[in-house]
């Protein structure tokens, strides 16, 4: 092309470009193909939606299962007991915390306004004082009305003898509602798993990235450190720490995080070792791009494929670990909503099969959904996978 021609071409192209700016699509074509592959795995796709629905629902557990009403209208004032803890004196009592399940308070509010309850009137630690038989008691639908409400002062005619006070899955050996504990337990498990997985991913990916990118001595020393580190028996450490520090969600999370990040290092490091010799990484170096930018812009996306593929499986592992610690009694503090604790109760009370079954079904559904999502993710990132 001669210069004159070139100039003319440039002019026309400029105009064209100005006339219709090309908008960049939200998903790159590669990611579009991945999403299509993910959707092609129907089981994983539906599992994702079911899991997300369950997760979002349980995030609002307080509005589904709670011993406090959602909205109360009392003497012309609109109150939100779910969000705000009102002292009992507000309703004429003298305790610091209001027990809305108390018939006195209930009558007082009903007389001066109204209240809207969540569908299940128990929180995970609410003790049902009116269980039809000694706890653990059966699911409410297994009793007739008479037995179910026998413990209420007015029996069948008691205002508390309603569906909202049912124990759909029975109660545990401390007369707490199993369904409420399952809902809260699901949330705690998933949140614990998610935070632990994301935390380990951030630490593990950074550590793997640094080792893989710089290689040499950095890599050598870090690898030896990891070998020593991962040789520490986590369970013993948890036992020792549990004797010193009060057990709690975040202490447990922190302790697990100290060791779980190691899982990501190997795969990310390998990916970086491979990719740092790619020609486009060399090209970026030749442009004078600093190491930090090369790591983030050119190398991390490569490692992300491996990381994302691992993520659902690590998440599953984290949840199982929490459950097993709870089962052994080294997990969350006593009284917390935990599926492991539910399983332990099931094991102790073989005469109350609803405990073990509820725990087992919840866990297996949650873990299966996540595994199906994980499989679909793996399909989505498999470059050789073609669907017909």
């Amino acid at each position, binding site marked *: 092309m001669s210069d004159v021609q*070139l100039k003319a071409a440039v002019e026309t192209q400029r105009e064209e470009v100005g006339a219709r700016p*090309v908008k960049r699509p939200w998903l790159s074509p590669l990611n579009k193909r991945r999403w*299509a592959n993910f959707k092609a795995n129907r089981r994983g796709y539906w599992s994702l939606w079911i899991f997300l629905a369950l997760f979002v629902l349980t995030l609002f557990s307080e509005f589904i299962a709670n011993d406090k009403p959602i909205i109360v209208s009392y003497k012309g004032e609109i109150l939100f007991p779910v969000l705000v803890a009102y002292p009992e004196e507000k309703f004429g009592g003298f305790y610091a915390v209001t027990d809305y399940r108390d018939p006195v308070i209930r009558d007082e509010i009903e007389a001066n306004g109204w209240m809207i309850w969540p569908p299940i009137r128990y929180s995970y630690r609410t003790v049902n004082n009116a269980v039809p038989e000694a706890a653990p008691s059966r699911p409410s639908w297994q009793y007739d009305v008479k037995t179910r409400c026998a413990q209420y002062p007015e029996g069948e005619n008691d205002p508390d003898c309603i569906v909202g006070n049912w124990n759909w899955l029975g109660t545990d050996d401390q007369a707490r509602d199993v369904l409420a504990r399952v809902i809260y337990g699901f949330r705690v498990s998933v949140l614990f798993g998610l935070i632990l997985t994301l935390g380990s991913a951030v630490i593990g990916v950074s550590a793997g990235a640094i080792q893989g990118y710089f290689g040499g001595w950095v890599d050598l020393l870090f690898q030896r450190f990891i070998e020593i580190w991962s040789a520490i028996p986590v369970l013993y450490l948890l036992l020792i720490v549990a004797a010193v520090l009060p057990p709690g969600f975040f202490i447990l999370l922190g302790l697990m995080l100290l060791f779980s990040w190691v899982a990501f290092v190997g795969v990310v490091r390998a990916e970086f070792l491979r990719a740092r010799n790619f020609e486009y990484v060399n090209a970026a170096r*030749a442009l004078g791009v600093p190491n930090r930018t090369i790591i983030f812009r050119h190398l991390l996306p490569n490692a992300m494929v491996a990381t994302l593929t691992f993520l659902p499986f690590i998440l599953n592992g984290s949840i199982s670990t929490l459950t097993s610690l709870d089962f052994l009694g080294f997990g969350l503090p006593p009284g917390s909503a935990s599926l492991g604790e539910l399983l332990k109760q099931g094991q102790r009370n073989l005469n109350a099969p609803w405990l073990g079954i509820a725990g087992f079904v919840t866990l297996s559904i949650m873990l299966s959904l996540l595994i199906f999502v994980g499989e679909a993710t793996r399909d989505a990132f498999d470059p050789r996978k073609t669907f017909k």
Partner: protein
Amino acid sequence: MSAQPLLSIRDLSVAFTQGGAESLAVDHVSFDIAKGETLALVGESGSGKSVSALSVLKLLPYPSASHPSGEIRFDGKDLMALGEKDLRRVRGNKITMIFQEPMTSLNPLHTIEQQIVEVLSLHQGMRDEQARARTLELLNEVGIREPEKRLGAYPHQLSGGQRQRVMIAMALANEPELLIADEPTTALDVTVQAQILELLARLKQKNGMSMLFITHDLGIVRKIADRVCVMTKGKIVETGPTKEIFDNPQHEYTRHLLAAEPKGKPPAPDPDARPVMIGEQVKVWFPIKQGFFRKVVDHVKAVDGIDVTVRAGQTLGVVGESGSGKTTLGLALARMISSKGEIRFDGRDIDKLSFNAMRPLRRELQIVFQDPYGSLSPRMSVAEIIEEGLRIHEPKLGADARDGRVVDALNEVGLDPATRFRYPHEFSGGQRQRIAIARAMVLNPKFVMLDEPTSALDMSVQAQVVDLLRGLQARHDLAYLFISHDLKVVRALANDVIVMRNGRIVEAGPADQIFGNPQTDYTRALISAAFRIETAPSGAVNE
């Protein structure tokens, strides 16, 4: 030519299914190969020539590949109708194949002997002594020296040419009637290519086999083929005896292919032009460490004391076989790897600068890499790729101004700027190389190291890229260091040439003098291999 052809392909089509969409890779292709004949299938990448050849032995990834139509008759039998078991009896026995990349087509974990004996025992049931004797005979036949010593060697211990010879030995083990050679010399040096082609021609003559030769290189076709089929976009557009096709091409595409050789003249040598890059006694030695304490016992002298001067507006060509240290020299000059010896860029000593201190200079010192598929990040759009350097070297530039520079750079390399939001995989090899050139040019460099920028491209695209590079040089007074093993391209682009072998300069001087009157055997061998595909007397070049 006998009445019945050995292989007869009629109306063959190949379709690939991906994501529900079907694309036709080969579209109703027909050709015959007679006994003892060499047929060349010529075309550019993506024309469907390899796919046609692979479908003869049904080696395609079924079921994502399918044959909507066609018939393949080999020696009277319909191969399409054969079951997997009967096909296996044909594969590696009656019809054998050699592939492009000898490193990856040999199993790295097995010795040469094991791999050849496997073929012998599979089809002929040979065992032990008998198989060993036949293996030695075959290795001798394909020109491997001292085959007894080579029997226990693993593929990585052999050179590229030797590996390809082993592949040929495996293909010949069962005395096939048809040999399919899929670009067997593309991955090899020109000098080795000439040796392999000579070997193939000799063996074909001796064993009386037929050959289906797939290549994109017309020079090879003229040398080796009896008849030629020209393929483009899945169709055969022209068939005929080699001489006829070359002398009197009928189809437009054939003429286009024939005209595709890089043409034009390099800039006139100007010894007074300002030197941009000067290297004095540049050395790159890689230490060989041994023992528990990793003591340095010796060095691999990749570049061993080389003087170069690259002047503004001029091109210095660096030629040599693979392993001669060309690319290492270029990387050392661009300070991508550490080296000894003085390097002056634009009047400044840069050989002692750290990576960070080099950064401001990087914009004036750019590199274009060999493989346009590897050198562009697949996750970044073209605009992001090109503006990456601008973000670093001109951080104050606003988004609009930066976009303007990207558009200018794309225009300059002859690409439609509207495509800048697309991703590299949507572009062809030639277009990708243009993007890589635009990435270098957007920074207005003074010196560009071109590391085999054309060797991964099709012939006709090569010529376009050479024209583009020459145009850019004239417009911006660029200094090029052009590294290539392809002397045709070097002749079209470089006004000065240095010839390298084993890290040292064998010959240096103006291009006219080197090409017109080469002084050393090595240079003469390179030139005759590149331009006439002839082998040199033994000893002048590597095997």
